[in-house]
């Protein structure tokens, strides 16, 4: 479960990115967050992963109050979240396999069981035959799928993705969205930011719209 109540985020330069945000996302729900550039979508996701801290208000993720979380506890919170970042954050000097295995190495998995999980994740995103390839040799869609595999390899209960379809052509976009739906179908809470609602017109999922840092729906 993710719960925001009266959350404000003001950056040191005085810019107020989020104002009085309050919502609850139930376990296993799939939610889209939309809004124009600068609306506060990325900030909202960063607050869930404790990459940013709220100025005021409380954020509960998996029964943990992130606003009061000690810095030393943040890594353990992030291990239970699958995050697909806007800038992808791929390590281009490592193979596809080595990129995906990183969260498991961080959690202390043994090589054998980690390898099994990595291959399962790569299979799920259709990259099993490219495990030895370097990310630079992958297409944009494949790189995004690599990021999804890295996010889900640790089998998180919450999957958050910051504009995962930006810069992808429509065929890849549909592909990636179907992937998130499949994770949602197996009980994962999925939270995705998307710049425009057009993409989601036919979506049967809940949509939270942000405008100038405020929740409008």
């Amino acid at each position: 479960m993710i719960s925001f109540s009266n959350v404000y985020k003001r950056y040191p330069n005085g810019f107020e990115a989020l104002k009085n945000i309050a919502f609850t996302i139930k376990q296993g729900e799939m939610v889209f967050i939309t809004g124009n550039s600068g609306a506060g979508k990325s900030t909202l996701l960063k607050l869930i992963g404790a990459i940013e801290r709220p100025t005021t208000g409380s954020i509960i993720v998996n029964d943990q109050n992130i606003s009061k979380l000690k810095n030393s506890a943040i890594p353990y919170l992030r291990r239970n979240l699958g995050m697909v970042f806007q800038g992808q954050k791929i390590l281009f000097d490592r193979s596809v396999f080595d990129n995906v295995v990183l969260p498991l190495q961080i959690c202390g998995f043994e090589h054998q069981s980690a390898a099994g999980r990595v291959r399962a994740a790569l299979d799920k995103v259709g990259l099993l035959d490219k495990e030895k390839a370097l990310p630079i040799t992958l297409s944009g869609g494949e790189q995004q799928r690599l990021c999804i595999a890295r996010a889900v390899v640790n089998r998180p209960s919450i999957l958050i993705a910051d504009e995962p379809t930006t810069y992808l052509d429509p065929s890849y976009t549909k592909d990636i969205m179907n992937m998130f739906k499949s994770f949602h179908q197996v009980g994962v809470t999925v939270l995705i930011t998307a710049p425009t609602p057009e993409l989601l017109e036919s979506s049967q999922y809940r949509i939270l719209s942000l405008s100038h840092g405020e929740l409008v729906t």
Partner: protein
Amino acid sequence: MNMWLSHHWHAFFLALQRLVDSPLASLLNIIVIGVAFSLPTGVYMLLGNVQSFSGQLSGAPQLNVFLKLGTGKDAIEKLESHLKQHPQIENFRFLSKDKALEQLKQRNGMAGAVNSLTRNPLPDAFIIDAKSISPETLKRLRNEMLKWPESMHVQLDSDWMERLNVLLKLGQIALLILTALLSFALIVVTFNTIRLQILTKRNEIEVSKLIGATSNFIRRPFLYFGAIQGVAGGAIAWLIVALVINLINSELMNLVHLYAVDFQLHHISFEDSISLLLFSSWLGWAGAWLSVASHLWQIEP
């Protein structure tokens, strides 16, 4: 426990991989550390060898009382009984001038010279071991013996030992200063290597932090890298010193043979070798730790 081991194994493997990834830079660093460390190690070995050689030569300091030429048998017997009763003398032996000449003849290359002498120029002598080895007591004894009417010269063979000991102490101070300076240099070399690594691995550190890596997880491979580099540098220093000792020993053999002395430089003992490797590894670790502590906090996702 398994997770702890797994983390350490992963960090160790990653550190090795980073060493192998830039082989030339790593090798040069290790050689610099090795050469720098071979200096204090070499000086330490040299001091140890000189110390053991001087101990081997002198044992307990002795007093040699050389009697005036022509000292009679009665006077010698009188001196012997005096020495027997002396409270500060452990034991003594009389070396007659004939026996001294015989011993001189047996020395390498001296037989010809001795045979050419028309008369024995050597004096009778007493070789005395004192009960105390304190320099003051020995000097008091020497002054007392100098006053004997039969004594021509009294030689205290601890004089050169004292001078050598002072020199060795100076050498030890120089060794300490050299070790401290070069240890500092090793820390600086490792600090800078790790700083550059942190800069080049910035993206990896950032991603790791984003997906749940603790500071310890990120820090560990750098610490292992510093320790491995340090221990490899220590091993190079060991090799350099062992090689130099071998080279010197082969030349030294010819030299000591000329003086009829049995001496060769000892190699680094097993304990000293382990201490060297542990110390260099610790210094590498310390350099890495300082570097990580001062640079890692600057990288936040």
